[in-house]
């Protein structure tokens, strides 16, 4: 059986690229897109894969991470898929990659202008945390009517109604206009979206939405003028058991018999570089 380059047919890929151009023209706005079927289950990164498939050229080098790691099963699986269907080179080094597809983390390594970061997105519309109606959410976006989101934030600050924003997928405002989901990255990663030299594209296949951030876009986590955004950095002095880093985002590894927790860097590339240095 012959497969087309990067699995999808050329017409589908062109349709996706057109959507990407529109998304780049209106930063943070969720553009409806066709999201063709991929041979991976919805919820496992189809949106990101569709974007990657439509962008890949024969000379591209692809890096795929899940939770910052190149070695988690889903990252391995997606990377193997593109090696097989596009025959492209892959890498685990961000600086060597032209396209970086990620899930649930913004890369910690430095990003540069020639690169594209592709995010896998489960819930593209941050307003859907507040309203069940797609029509109502679209109206609110059109009017930049984000009062309910700020009300929730205010209630959290004042401690009323037990309201809380989660520590991940914390909404951001793009160029002061559109409220956008950063995808379920930890809150602290939001700051890395801002003023980024790379193009950032967010694909949500199941929900048929795609949005993007052109290079150097202003991205602010929602906050009040007098109460700044809190990135939620841990304050318990935790350090990585591999490289000793205390500043990077750390995942819980295990609870030792003595009741102490062990932590490990989520971003395996940066962790390995620190450990080797």
């Amino acid at each position, binding site marked *: *059986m012959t497969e087309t380059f990067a699995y999808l047919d050329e017409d589908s890929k062109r349709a996706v690229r057109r959507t990407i151009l529109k998304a780049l023209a209106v930063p943070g706005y969720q553009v409806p897109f066709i999201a063709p079927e991929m*041979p*991976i*289950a919805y919820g*496992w990164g189809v949106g990101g894969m569709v974007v990657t498939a439509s962008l890949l050229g024969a000379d591209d080098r692809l890096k795929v991470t899940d939770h910052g790691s190149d070695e988690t*099963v*889903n990252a*391995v*699986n997606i990377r*193997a*898929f593109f090696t*097989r269907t596009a025959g492209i080179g892959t890498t685990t080094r961000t600086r060597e990659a032209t396209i970086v597809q990620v899930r649930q983390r913004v890369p910690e390594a430095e990003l540069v202008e020639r690169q594209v970061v592709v995010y896998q997105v489960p*819930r593209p519309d941050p307003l*859907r*945390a*507040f*309203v*069940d109606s797609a029509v109502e959410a679209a109206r609110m976006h059109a009017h930049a009517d984000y009062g309910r989101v700020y009300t929730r934030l205010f209630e959290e600050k004042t*401690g009323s109604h*037990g309201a*809380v924003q*989660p520590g991940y997928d914390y909404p951001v405002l793009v160029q002061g206009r559109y409220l956008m989901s950063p995808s379920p990255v930890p809150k602290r990663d939001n700051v890395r979206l801002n003023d980024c030299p790379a193009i950032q594209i967010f694909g949500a296949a199941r929900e048929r939405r795609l949005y993007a951030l052109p290079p150097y876009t202003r991205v602010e986590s929602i906050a009040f003028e007098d109460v700044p955004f809190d990135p939620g950095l841990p304050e318990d002095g935790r350090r990585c058991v591999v490289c000793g880093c205390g500043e990077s985002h750390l*995942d*819980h*590894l*295990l609870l030792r018999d003595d009741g102490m927790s062990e932590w*490990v860097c989520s971003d395996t590339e940066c962790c390995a570089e620190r450990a080797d240095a």
Partner: protein
Amino acid sequence: MYVPVKGGEAAIAESRKALARARRGDPAVPELTVAQIREQMRGAVDRVMTEGALYDRDLAALALKQAQGDVAEATFLLRAHRAMLRRMGHSEPLDLSAIRPDRHISATAKELPGGQILGATCDYTHRLLDFSLMGKAAPFPEAASGLDDMPPDFPRAKGEEGEDEPVDITRVPLRPPYGPSETLGHLVRGEEGFLTGLAYTRLRTAGAAHPYVEDLVAGEVEVSVALEDIGLTVSIGDIELTACRMVAPVLDGPRSHLSPGFGVAFGCNERKAVAMAAVDQALKSGLDSELVLAHADGVEAGGYVSHLKLPHYSDFQADLETIRRLAADD
């Protein structure tokens, strides 16, 4: 005027013959054996056993053969057969910490006691048609060695406490309030697609918490029965099952906590176990019990929806007359 159901005996007999011919397909192709279905249609067999509420691979395979692979119909056949069996009692609670895992993963813990065991799963395959299977005999893949070295025991939280006797939902009519064992009983027999859809609506609904698969395990576990007459608990054999523990964050000031959900299925059936666990958790967080428990049963739902094919001459006539009367008033 009501026209009674008149099929005619001869017409029904011909319909049954037509069904038998359709089941057999092209007689030039060899007939399927029950053993082939049992061994090579494992997903369907396990699902029919779970929703049919009877752990018997041969009977589930037979039901699938008879039902031409229609899982809902096969489940119905197995349930109907089950109704003829005498109830002997109930087993002791299964010790899920002693399961011999073929697969064991966690989406919350990086380091799982015994290690993450991927086992036989489609999760990491690319869903591309494998045309090599069109041929006759695929080579038998060798298993990797080393799995037997895994420690069989790992700590696992017990299920819900508080009920000594499990509720047999085939003997206790559904009425509120619904206890945990009753709820799980209905969910485990519940139709997989319905529960998956419900779990999906919960994931997309505003304000609903995102649950996490804390522990998903598939493997063999021993079933024991207490013989009260002689004061002994004896093993009656092993069954294969899939069990899922889910947790979802409940954010409520100082009362914030993780809320658990539990799902289980006969054989290897993760979609069912995970969907059931998500729904079980959602029921604790405000999902309408009546909506779920009264509508989850595939045999009941399929039966009532298919009854729409029965003659409805009298009620339809009455509705027509009402429509005509109301429309004429205008």
